[in-house]
Structures are given as C-alpha cells and as structure tokens.
C-alpha cells in the first residue's frame, strides 16, 4: 500500500481555511459527522432487517465527500455519483437531506426516488444530483453528455463524476475521457481509490502506480492526493473547477482513501487483514479535520463533541421520519416508466 | 345380365322414399317403361318403371319399406339368368344432398369387381379417389357413397381420432351462434378441421333442408356431382330461420324436449253443443258477430279448468304455480306462423262476450294489431284445426303452461245406437296433451272427461 503522495502543506492549509471561513469549516465538520452517523445507522438498520437489499458503506471516506462538494456549487453544478455515494448525496445537500435519503433506503414513498431506486440509485435531480449508479463506471459516459450540454448552453457549470478504482478499467472510462478531452468538456473525473475494487486490490488490477497517470493518455491534467484530508480534496477539486471554467477541459483526480467496511454487506473481507483495516482506522479523517480546526483556533473540543452529538441526533430524527413514512402504493406500480 | 332397379330420386333434397305397393310381383314379365311399383315421398306418389324388358326378380323390399334413394330394390332378369350373389340388405346410406336425376346413368365399365353405386362413383371422381382402393359395404361388395366418404375422411385425417373436434376459433364461435353441434359438421380444413365456412354452410343447409328426416349429419363436404341426365330442379329457396319463425322453432323444440308430453284423446258428441250454439246465435242482434264453436269450446274449457285447477298451472323451474285466473289462449294461424291471443278470465265471461273477443282477437291477430298484454298470461291453450278438415291431432304445450287442447273437426260418424244400430252423430275428437311432470294420467283423463261432459250437456255449466 502506497502513501498518499500529496497532502496539504500547513501554509496552504491556513490559506484554505481562511478562504473557507470558520462557519463553513464547522459546517463541513458537521456534515462529516452526519455522514458517519448516517452510515453507522444504516449499517445497524440493515442488521436489524429494516433496510433490505444491499448497501455499500463509505465509512472512512467522509473527507473525500465533504471536501469535494464544498469546492462545488450544488444545485448549479452537476453531480454523477457511484454506488458507494451516500456521503456524496449528504454532502451535496449540506446534510439537510437526511430524511428523504433515509426514507429511500427504507423504500418509502417519501424517499428521493419514491422507493423505486434504493441506496444505489439515489438522485435529487432538482439539485442537479443526477443520481448514483449501480453500474461501475455507469456515470462516466453520462458525464460526457452533461459536459457537452454545459458547453452547448455556454454556462460556467461544471460536472463532477464519482467513480472508484475499479471503474477506471471499464472500456467506457477510456471512451469517455477521450471524448471529454477532445472537446474540452468541463468535467472533473473524480476517482475514489479506496485500494480495492471488490476484492481485487489496485496492486493486482493495475500495471501503473497511480490511476491519475492515465490522464496523460488523453492529454489532460491528472492529480493524486490524500483523499482523507478534507482540505486536500477541497484544494484539488477547486483547481480542477477553475480549469474547467476556463475552458481548459477535464481533469482526472485520484483521491487515495480507504473503506473501513467490506464492499457490501455480504463481504467477509478475506482479501485484506484486520491489521490493515485498523491501521487506516487510526487515521480517521474526522478527528483529523477536527484537530486541524482546533489547532487553527476555529473549534473547541466541546464544540467538536456537540457537533458530533447533534449529527447523531439528526440521524435519529430521520429514522423516525422514514419509519413513519408510507410505502409506495402498488396501484401506481407502472408509474414513471415513460414520460 | 341382371339389370338393377334402384329407388329413384325425384326431388332435389329427397333422401328416401317409401314403397307404397308393388304393381308387379316376383317372376312377372315386365316391359321397359312399365310401372312396376308405386312409391311416395313428402306426400307425393311416384311410379317406378322397369328399366328393361325382362322378368322382375330379386325384390328386396316389401311394400311399406322406406328405402334410401339409389338403393337397389329389385332386378330385371333375362331368361335363365340368376340373381347376383345374394347379400344382406345393405344399411341405408346417409342421405345425399345434391341433385341426382330420376334415372341416373350407370356405367359399370370402370367399377371394381362388384362395382359402385352411381353416387359413390360421382363422389369418387370429384374427390380424385381410386374406387378400387375403397372397401365396398354395399350389396355384393358394391362401393356405396358412404364408403367413399369414409375413405375420403380417413385420407384427410393425419392422426387417429382422439374424440376431440378440430375446429378453428371462428368456427366454434359460428357454431355457438347458430346453435349447431360442431361434432356433427364435416370439416373442409386441413386434417378435417372445421372451418367457419363449414359451419355457415351447415346452418344454411339445415334451414333449406326438406322436412324428410335426416339419418346422419347434414353432409356439407359431399361435392356437387357431374352433369345429371335429367334437367336439374334449380336452386332451393333459402329462408333464414329468424323472427317469429325462429322464436316458434326455439320454443317448440324447447317445450317438446323438456316437457314429457302425454296425449289423451276422446270423441265428443256435439249434438247438444251445436243446438245450443244455434240458440245462442239466434239471440244475437243483426250486425254483431256470431258465436263460433271455438268460443263455445273455450267457455267449456274454462269451466273444466275451474273444476281441475292443477291443469290451470304453470311449471316454473322447481315450482308448480296453481294460477288463480283462468286465461284461455286461442291459437290463431297466421300466414307463416301462429300466435296465441288470450281470453282472460274466460270462466267468468258470458258466451256472447267470449264470442266477441274470439272474433276480434282473431281478426287483429291476422292483421298484426295485437297488443303485448293480449298475448300474455295465458294459463291453458286451445288449438282448433277443425276448419282445416283435420280429424285429430296433437299439439305442443306452450310453456310455462302444463296443458293444451287440440280440437279436430266436427263430422258425422256412425256410432252404435241403443240397439247397436248405426246412428249418425256429429262427433268432434279432442286431444288433450299434458305435461306429465305436473299432471298425471288420471288427472288428465278426468279433466278431458269433464270437458266432454260440459260440451255434451252445455246447460250443466250453469249449475
């Protein structure tokens, strides 16, 4: 396992924090806690049988979600998400969309997708969250279309598409990056490299060191950074956004991170050691960001705890909301196939 | 060479004929063209002629026998000739439906050993069947029409019959609509499948068929034969079974099939009834309609129904409803049907009133002016065909009624007098038909006896 090659230097961190501001920074911390609380609760509810199907938890990847979304303008810019994207959904909504998210997990009518999508397909089209995808790399070609649409309409919107290390080996990945590159589309290709596709480690699946190296194949910028550093994510995405808005085309970003949980609920994780997991857990991105804020004098320990507690409470409220929400009416089963 | 004499076909739809009498006997000399027997069909008598000079022999059917057309009934032999190999009388073939001339051409030249009937030959030719391949079940192994048809049907059937009818959905629907049994219809489709056209043709054939009874399924697959020798009789007039005719047909069939009809006949001495009617009519003012015998009979019937209430009931599903009112229906013949207007409460009306109603209802029945309520609620029906010269007949009950009275003509007949001397009396034969589900024999007998008493002593009704 390789060390992340780029993390934010202290001076840069200071500058970034100044740019972000105390209020937003605290908000970011709260959103990270919200994501963590949400994922833990989802795991618990699944074990209790209150959520069915499967789910792909992103515990440990909160920094990547929050850092990126705060460098973008949700509701204006576009998000194409992947199946391990609960964090991105929550971050995109600034933590204010827990209820419809939880309701969708429970398949209720009040969920984002009226119970038709489930955890893998959550979308909030109104806020330009164009949906999570159950197909690895499924959103990558769609991003081309979104970028093309932005370009034809001549706005300064940007599209970020999330995918994992495994998706970078799909054929569609290459077609899409190529097409985005020839037309200079305003797309951020954001690869969350959490070291494993399902059970296949990146060492075994790639003949190159860094996924971002593939950028040169398409003549675009590529950059790898520590995905568990909120500010590093924020920084990398901000730069990519600038490039996109300046008409300089797409960027391939690689956020090095780690998922604490197995691929899905049915993963017994025979492909990695407990020690490895524990080593990454010791580098929990949430306390890491909290400490940074405290070091910068933007937060106290008590406030850190209060933010955490508030986040967990918010989740409890959302669960109650979702549980009390109605099931979809079978009489409407054919709805939504055709416009 | 023995010459066959076959039962000739005279009519287009004629299927069989009854031998009325042999005019010549076994062994008689006959001349070509000489009538040798008389036969009848559909109330038409025809003569059968000897086809050749010779000796009449081998008579196979006695007088009174009903023989299918084209069957051999006898032979004309020459001196010293013997009859062809004797064989048991062949089962009558299914009746044919196409035009066959009175004296069909016969050509034994290309037949099998025993030959084939002319009809069989014609069908075989039309179907492209090699006669020598067909097993004959006729006299001496002769191939009959039935044999050829069986052969053709067998050729068409690819698999052994499994008892199920092969028919297209359209054919099934048509059969449902026409009320026909699919199993009785020959199919012209592949492997004998019944097509819609087959069903429609069967329905048409049934509507146009002569009253002569059909022995088997109405043949629709039999092809038209080659040009007959005699001039063809032309096309049948097709009358679709619809409207009143259809209604009568359905109701008559239903009644006849569902109610066990039992008939009771007796002769009524109408001497006093005739006298009474005369008396009554003398008292009717000029210009008013006279009381008919039917009116008197209806009055008597109404009175008898009061004495025997069970005969005045309805059978509806599982219940016998003994009706409180006596409403006597009177069958009136129409041009192409019949209708039964009702004289309500006939037991309570005087004869004059009944007489007027009879005249009025009959007139309006014939001119189609009856109102619906005038043909409703009848509890018993009287049908009088005396004016047509009928001596006696039986009628079909009009459901849900349980009885009907068929009245014949009044005619003078000789009956034994006091000293067994012949005395001429005006007698009228009435036939009561009752539904044995409701009325037993004794009851029926009592009713009709009551009626007879009323008619033979009209004054007794006053009591």
């Amino acid at each position, binding site marked *: 396992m390789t060390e992340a090659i780029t993390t934010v230097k202290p001076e840069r961190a200071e500058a970034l924090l100044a740019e972000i501001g105390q209020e937003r920074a605290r908000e970011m911390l709260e959103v990270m806690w919200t994501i963590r609380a949400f994922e833990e609760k989802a795991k618990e509810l699944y074990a209790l049988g209150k959520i069915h199907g499967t789910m792909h938890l992103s515990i440990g990847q909160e920094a990547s979600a929050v850092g990126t979304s705060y460098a973008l303008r949700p509701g204006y810019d576009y998000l194409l998400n992947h199946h391990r994207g609960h964090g991105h959904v929550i971050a995109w909504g600034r933590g204010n969309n827990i209820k419809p998210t939880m309701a969708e997990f429970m398949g209720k009518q009040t969920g984002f997708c009226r119970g038709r999508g489930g955890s893998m397909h959550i979308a909030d089209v109104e806020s330009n969250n164009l949906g999570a995808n159950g197909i690895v790399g499924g959103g*990558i*070609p769609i*991003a081309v*279309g979104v970028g093309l649409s932005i370009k034809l309409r001549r706005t300064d919107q940007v599209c970020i598409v999330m995918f994992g290390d495994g998706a970078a080996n799909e054929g*569609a990945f290459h077609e*899409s990056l190529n097409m985005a590159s020839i037309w200079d589309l305003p797309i951020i290709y954001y690869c969350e490299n959490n070291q494993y596709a399902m059970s296949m480690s990146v060492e075994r699946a790639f003949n190159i060191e860094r996924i971002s190296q593939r950028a040169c194949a398409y003549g675009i910028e590529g950059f790898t950074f520590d995905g568990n550093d909120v500010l590093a994510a924020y920084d990398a995405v901000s730069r990519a956004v600038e490039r996109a808005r300046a008409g300089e085309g797409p960027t391939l970003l690689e956020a090095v991170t780690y998922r604490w949980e197995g691929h899905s609920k049915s993963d017994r994780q025979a492909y990695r050691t407990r020690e490895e997991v524990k080593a990454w857990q010791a580098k929990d991105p949430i306390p890491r960001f909290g400490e940074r804020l405290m070091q910068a004098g933007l937060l106290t320990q008590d406030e850190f705890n209060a933010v955490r507690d508030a986040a967990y409470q918010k989740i409890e409220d959302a669960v109650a909301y979702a549980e009390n929400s109605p099931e979809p009416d079978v009489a409407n089963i054919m709805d939504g196939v055709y416009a | 060479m023995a010459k066959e004499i076959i039962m000739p076909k005279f009519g287009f739809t004629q299927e069989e004929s009854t031998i009325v009498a042999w005019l010549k006997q076994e062994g008689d000399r006959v001349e070509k063209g000489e009538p040798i027997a008389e036969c009848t069909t559909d109330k038409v008598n025809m003569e059968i002629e000897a086809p050749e000079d010779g000796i009449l022999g081998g008579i196979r059917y006695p007088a009174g026998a009903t023989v299918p057309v084209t069957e051999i009934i006898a032979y004309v032999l020459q001196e010293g000739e013997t009859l062809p190999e004797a064989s048991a009388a062949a089962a009558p073939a299914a009746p044919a439906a196409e035009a066959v001339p009175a004296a069909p051409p016969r050509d034994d030249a290309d037949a099998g050993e025993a030959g084939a009937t002319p009809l069989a030959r014609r069908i075989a030719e039309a179907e492209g069947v090699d006669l020598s391949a067909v097993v004959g079940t006729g006299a001496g192994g002769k191939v009959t029409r039935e044999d050829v048809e069986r052969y053709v049907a067998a050729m068409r059937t690819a698999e052994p019959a499994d008892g199920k009818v092969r028919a297209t959905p359209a054919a099934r629907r048509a059969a449902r609509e026409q009320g026909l049994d699919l199993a009785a219809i020959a199919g012209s489709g*592949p492997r004998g499948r019944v*097509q819609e056209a087959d069903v429609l043709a069967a329905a048409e054939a049934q509507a146009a068929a002569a009253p002569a009874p059909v022995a088997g399924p109405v043949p629709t697959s039999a092809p038209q034969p080659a040009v007959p020798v005699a001039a063809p009789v032309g096309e049948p007039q097709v009358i679709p079974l619809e409207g009143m005719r259809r209604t009568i047909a359905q109701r008559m069939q239903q009644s006849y099939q569902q109610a066990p009809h039992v008939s009771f006949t007796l002769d009524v001495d109408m001497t006093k009834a005739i006298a009474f009617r005369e008396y009554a009519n003398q008292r009717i003012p000029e210009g008013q309609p006279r009381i008919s015998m039917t009116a008197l009979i209806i009055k008597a019937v109404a009175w008898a129904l009061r004495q025997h209430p069970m005969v005045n009931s309805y059978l509806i599903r599982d219940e016998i409803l003994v009706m409180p009112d006596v409403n006597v229906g009177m069958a009136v013949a129409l041009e192409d049907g019949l209708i039964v207007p009702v004289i309500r409460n006939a037991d309570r009306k005087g004869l004059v009133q009944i007489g007027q109603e009879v005249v009025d209802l009959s007139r309006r029945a014939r001119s189609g002016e009856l109102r619906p309520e005038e043909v409703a609620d009848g509890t018993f029906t009287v049908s009088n065909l005396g004016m047509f010269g009928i001596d006696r007949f039986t009628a079909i009950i009009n459901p849900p009624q349980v009885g009907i009275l068929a009245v014949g003509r009044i005619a003078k007949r000789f009956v034994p007098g006091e000293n067994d001397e012949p005395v001429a009396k005006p007698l009228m034969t009435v036939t009561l038909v009752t539904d044995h589900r409701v009325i037993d024999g004794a009851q029926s007998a009592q009713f009709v006896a009551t009626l007879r008493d009323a008619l033979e002593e009209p004054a007794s009704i006053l009591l």
Partner: protein
Amino acid sequence: MLETTTTATRELTYAEAIREAIRQAMEQDERVFLLGEDVGVYGGAFGVSAGLIDQFGEERIRDTPISEAAIAGACIGAALTGMRPIGEIQFMDFVTLSMEQLVLQAAKLRFMFGGKATVPFVLRMPGGAGTGAAAQHSESLENWFVHVPGLKVVMPSNAYDAKGLLLAAIDDDNPVIFIEHKLLYKTKAHVPEEMYRIPLSQTNIARQGTDLTVVATSLMVQRALQAADILAEDGIEIEVVDPRTLNPLDDQPIFESVKKTGKVLIVHEAVGTGGYGGEIAARIAASEAFDYLDAPIRRLTGLDIPIPYNRTLEYHTVPQVENIVAEARKLVKGEY
C-alpha cells in the same frame, strides 16, 4: 412502392426526409443537436446528414470517435440536463457496444429516480440486410429494445412516415430507438415541406383488404404492399398493417383487422426465434380477435442464422416478395 404520380407532389427519398426532419428540428430548437461517427464532414455513412454541418457547424453536427458507449452516454447526459440530442449509431450492429448505457441507464433513470428525471433523446441507426455487408453489419435487433421498458422503439417503413415519426420522436420526452432500414434510404414518397408529426404508438393500415391481415415492419411493409398487388390480380385482397412504433404498441387496430379477415400473417426481417412476431402473435391470441381466427397465426421471418455474405444465400435468409405471396396464398386457401 409508395411512388406518387401527381406532379404537384413533392418527392423525397427516405434519407432526405430524415435529413429534413433533423434540419427543421434543429432550426426550430437550439436544444437539438446531432452526434455520431462521421456525421459531420463525411455526411453520415449513408449520407443522411450530408450538408448539415455547413448549415449548423461542427458544434451541433458533432463527429465523435469510435465510442458507442460514450455516444450513448453523451446522449443520456445531455438529455438529462436540458438538451434534446439525436445520436447516430453507424450500423445497428454496433449498438451492442452501447447496450449498458441504453438498457441500464437511459431506459431506467426515470423509473429509478421515482419519475423525477426526463431523458429525451433519439438514437438513430440503420439496420437490416440486403447489401452484402454480412453478419456483423446487417442486424435487426429491434426486439432487444422492445424488451426494455423505458425505451420507445420506432421503425418507419417509408419516407413520409420517416420524417413525421422522427419529428415526433424528437419531441417525445423519452429515449427513442429509431431504426432505419438501409434498403429504404433510396425509396421515395410524397413528403410535405411543413413540420408534420406522426404520433408515436399509432398503428397504420397501409392497405385495406378483406382476405388476410399482414402485419409487417420496416422494409417488410414495402414488400407486403408489392405482394398485395400481385395477390390482387388473383382476387386476393390483403390488409397490410404497419405498427410503426413497436413499443409501446398500438395493438387495437391489429385486433380489429384480424377480426375482419380471420387470418393473419406476421412478416419481419429479424430472426424468427425470439422475434417481434412472437409478441404480436401472443397478443392476437389473447385478444378478442381469437374467436375470429379461422386459421393458425403464421409468422414469416428471417431464418435463424447470421446473415450470410453470399448474395443468393442472403436473399433467401430474409422474407422476399414471393415468400409473402406464397404464404398469403396458402393461408387464404386454408392450407394451414
């Protein structure tokens, strides 16, 4: 053939009619643009988009690399975000490389998102055999798409229908798979200049008749009409029914026709097994038309083989006019 004879009519080829539809739609609506392989400078592999780049420029008539998955994805993404793209797949055979995007994304996004997303685009592609292009350039895969709820499938059989159906497809808010037949590109018909639309999911009675219903798609409609003229000389009048939109299907006119004639022959070029004819046959058998069937429902389809290269073999692989005539005769004569 739908040749018209009056001098006042305006005849366009099928390809020209499609081009006109694209042009008029793009003139009317900025959101409409065309992308695909060789559609720009080259004018399209079958010349359909010839000249359009001169009028609209390379932004809106956009050549793409050979990337069918990305082409489909581009259509989806653009449609999701307010555009109304027309994508072109150069040969229907290549749409197999777009299948994930079309089946798992385009068809399902709206439904999966609770009805809250709209994906309006048209993906055009030429299909069919008869040009000697052999097995990988002659496919008829329409039934694959019929089988995916969320997609609409349209197959125009003549130039007039092609323009009207394409304009309607562009207006439609759903992803529409628009399948053109290579051998139809040069056929002509009267095509009005104005922007007329033929509604999707509206079956057309291309020819009225009484003796037999022939349901046909795409090129087979033309062949059925030719067969109809031959059969009419013998007094056999067939009714030719063209669904035009295969899914969602307007099936009621088919049932009415079968009720009228009692016999039906379904003709399509695609392979018989698992083909669209099975869908039509099952619907007829389950409808009120069942009671009016006087013969088995018959299908006349492509053979269950890949399209062969040899011209004679290719000819005998798909239904030709004489095959339709022969089958029709057999059905009408009651031989089935």
